[in-house]
């Protein structure tokens, strides 16, 4: 295998000290489900794997002052069955329930899903619609990075896992007027990469007849999760009706720019599917309102 040493620190401080000692030749590992195959195929090597799944302070899912926080050692399986997430951010629970396979979900972490920086990551898509932020710790201190900033290019995160440690993801609790949904189109129900996926977050205003805020994230139609901002703005501009849902879905499909791929189908087909899936998802979310 393409690494030399393995350590499982018990605190963030210890993990950062190990990375510092390795001087750029260390690598943070959480579930390892992306990292180990990459190391095996010698896409890169590491002198030291720093396994963060033994760090107790990274294992929480909690609500704190209006924010929902999920630690970097929390797996997709844990997010998917967590009652707080199911209640407050259903799209995230739905997305996490579709990552990989049951075994992968028992190992792979939600924060790792973001750091792997794939544009259609089933955990990262709902987090993008939730406008989540990642907390990054390093020797220099701590900083918060928005979901969009974490993506540098396909498969490359702006979080440098050889020097920095993403410790948690957080997002604002939506409360009673907020609703979220996730959709996924794939060839098989398990272990199949998505042809398309997306998440919708909608906050109603106090009249419940208008959308105060709409956020949509789509993948894989760009290098990172894509926000069709014109479609979001359109949803906010008029009273809710079946017609505005169809029109918003149409706008999103025009804005999105999926590439033709042998695996995922043609550009034209996937644009049409964006329109269809998005309209159904928003209709389902608004429940015939």
């Amino acid at each position: 295998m393409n690494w030399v040493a393995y350590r499982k620190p018990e605190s963030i401080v210890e993990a950062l000290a190990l990375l510092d000692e390795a001087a750029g030749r260390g690598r943070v590992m959480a579930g390892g489900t992306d990292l180990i195959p990459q190391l095996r195929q010698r896409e890169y090597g590491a002198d030291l794997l720093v396994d963060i799944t033994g760090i107790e302070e990274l294992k929480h899912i909690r609500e704190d002052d209006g924010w929902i926080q999920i630690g970097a050692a929390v797996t997709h399986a844990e997010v998917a069955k967590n009652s707080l997430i199911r209640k407050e951010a259903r799209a995230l629970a739905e997305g996490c329930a579709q990552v990989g396979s049951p075994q992968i979900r028992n190992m792979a972490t939600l924060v790792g899903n973001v750091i792997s920086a794939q544009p259609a990551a089933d955990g990262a898509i709902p987090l993008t619609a939730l406008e989540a932020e990642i907390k990054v710790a390093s020797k220099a201190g701590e900083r918060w990075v928005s979901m969009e900033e974490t993506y540098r290019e396909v498969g490359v995160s702006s979080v440098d896992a050889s020097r920095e440690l993403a410790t948690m993801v957080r997002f604002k609790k939506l409360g009673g007027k907020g609703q979220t949904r996730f959709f996924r189109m794939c060839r098989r129900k398990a272990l199949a990469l998505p042809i398309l996926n997306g998440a919708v977050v909608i906050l109603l205003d106090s009249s419940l007849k208008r959308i105060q805020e709409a956020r949509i994230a789509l993948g894989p139609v760009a290098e990172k999760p894509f926000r069709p901002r014109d479609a979001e703005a359109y949803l906010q501009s008029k009273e809710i009706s079946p017609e505005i849902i169809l029109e918003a879905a149409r706008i999103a499909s025009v804005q999105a720019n999926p590439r033709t791929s042998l695996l995922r189908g043609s550009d034209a087909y996937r644009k049409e599917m964006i329109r269809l899936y998005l309209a159904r998802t928003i209709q389902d979310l608004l429940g015939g309102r």
Partner: protein
Amino acid sequence: MADLKKLRLKLNGTWREVETRPDRILLDLLREDLGLTGTKKGCERGECGACTVIMNGQAVLACLIPALKADGAEILTVEGMAPKDRLHPLQQAFWEEGAVQCGYCTPGMLLSAKALLDENPEPGVEEVKKAISGNLCRCTGYTKIIAAILAASDKMHKESRMRPVEEIEKEVPE
């Protein structure tokens, strides 16, 4: 050559101490160092499920786990599912239902099924399908595997219900 490191793991009910290189993968430790070849090596990239073992109560893939990560962990492989010369109800059901053809996926299937039944003793068909969705079988078409898991669940549940009242009463505090 990297230095050998010690790890302690509870393997199929018995604590063991072994030495291994830090870059060893759990699957190779089990198969090649400890001789437990029931756990199969398939794709080695987390897609086929042939290497599924139960670690700390959860189905995981031994091909993606550094061996040292198992330090302090409890691991169950197919060899530990039933006492010597006996079959676990799931193994018995796979046998009776004809859920085994070439057999390569079978150990992983059994452990994914066991992880399911440990958490949900009476699953429905859809829950069974979901639980084994990370285990590929290229022979059976899955129908008989699903039937076997449901049959084992039925049998285990009936057996637990048919325990003598006196035995159950002993477990209930006065």
